[in-house]
């Protein structure tokens, strides 16, 4: 160990060191507790055409920034910011900031929250009582596991940049903002606030648009997307179809879903076409046609048989939900 030749440096005892005091004064402004200071101003003459140079520089920065934004060294640590309390990374509390590596576990207790930064591509807020593990990270593909709790993700990146693995389904962003909950038993809830999210377990998929939600159950996977302001009868009947013992053969539940559906609930009805047996699709077609008529060229028989994919796609488009989010245009989402 080196001799203690400067006690002021160690614990601010002894004779003050003027240079160290100066550094304390200057750098202390960067503390999180400090009011802060501005980026240094550049002295010099101001050109009347400064704004043209500024605009050109902004364009150049944007072009370079978009290119660099998605660059990512494989296995690179993610930045973690403690929003409140003392979140823990691999069982160690972090004071304010930290980093989590591949395989690392980030935990919050009932009083703590944290934020994961995915470079400039997005942020993931970790709500209280949540366990999140970083599974993989490389350019264009990042994967975390939500073991339990709640996270809220906002992304500005090409589709499928982030996957959130829950015990019973995986949420894959399609350029979006969303929250995912998972309870201790492995059940979960996805809520999409912007764009679209694909929620899937093996071949069972739900494509969930902004404003909608989807449940998931262990061993089953995601249910049918729905709007949370639907009637409770509609929601409970849909849950019976998705997760009940009789499954999609529950005629009573299907009847309730159809009778309780509002025009906007056609989202759920069209989503059910792939899940219901052909014998039940006729009723589905009839009710959905009352809510929003199918496009010309799509017949009842084709919808039941599933033989007119372009026709079904055209029906989906009539819902006005838009295509998968244009993340490049909707860049402001990342700042919301």
């Amino acid at each position, binding site marked *: *160990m*080196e001799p*203690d*030749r*400067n006690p002021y*440096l*160690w*614990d*601010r005892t002894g004779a003050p060191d003027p*240079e*160290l005091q100066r*550094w*304390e*004064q*200057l*750098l*202390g*402004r*960067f*503390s*999180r507790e*400090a*009011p*802060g*200071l*501005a*980026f*240094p*101003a550049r002295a010099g003459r101001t050109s009347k055409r400064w704004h043209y140079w500024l605009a050109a520089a902004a364009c150049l920065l944007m072009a370079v920034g978009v290119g660099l934004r998605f660059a990512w060294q494989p296995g690179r640590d993610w*930045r973690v*910011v403690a929003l409140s309390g003392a979140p823990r*990374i691999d069982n*160690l509390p*972090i*004071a*304010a*900031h*930290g*980093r989590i590596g591949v395989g690392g576990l980030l935990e919050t207790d009932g009083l703590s929250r944290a934020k994961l930064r995915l470079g400039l591509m997005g942020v993931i807020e970790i709500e209280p009582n949540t366990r999140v593990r970083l599974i993989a990270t490389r350019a264009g593909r990042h994967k975390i596991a939500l073991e339990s709790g709640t996270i809220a993700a906002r992304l500005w990146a090409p589709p499928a940049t982030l996957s959130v693995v829950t015990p019973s389904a995986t949420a894959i962003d399609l350029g979006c903002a969303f929250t995912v909950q998972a309870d201790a038993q492995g059940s979960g809830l996805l809520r999409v606030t912007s764009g679209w999210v694909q929620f899937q377990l093996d071949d069972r998929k739900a494509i969930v648009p902004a404003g909608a939600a989807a449940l998931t159950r262990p061993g089953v996977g995601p249910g049918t997307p729905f709007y949370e302001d639907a009637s409770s009868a509609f929601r409970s009947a849909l849950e019976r179809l998705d997760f009940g013992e009789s499954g999609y053969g529950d005629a009573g539940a299907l009847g309730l879903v159809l009778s309780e559906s509002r025009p906007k609930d056609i989202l759920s009805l069209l989503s059910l076409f792939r899940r219901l047996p052909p014998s039940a699709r006729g009723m589905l077609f009839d009710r959905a046609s009352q809510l929003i008529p199918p496009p010309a060229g799509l017949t009842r028989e084709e919808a039941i048989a599933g033989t007119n994919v372009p026709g079904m796609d055209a029906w989906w488009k009539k819902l006005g939900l838009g295509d998968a989010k244009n993340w490049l245009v909707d860049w402001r989402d990342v700042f919301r």
Partner: protein
Amino acid sequence: MEQLDPDTSVPTAASPNDEEAWFVLAEVRRLPEAYRETLVLRFVEGLTGPEIAELTGLTPGSVRVNLHRGVELLRARLKGGTR
């Protein structure tokens, strides 16, 4: 050891010594990681050596070495007239 990240502090209000502060901070950021983190905790966050050791889990001896060597390196770089 947890890593402090000076980038997360983004000051916003102006003051007379801003330019010098940013210059010193830039030199701190160029230091080797172990020295940089220790000096950030000492001069940015205002912790003492014992507090840094407690926070980071490093031994007091390691913190002392990082502080002394980091400060010597920072002094040399600031005197190097790179401004």
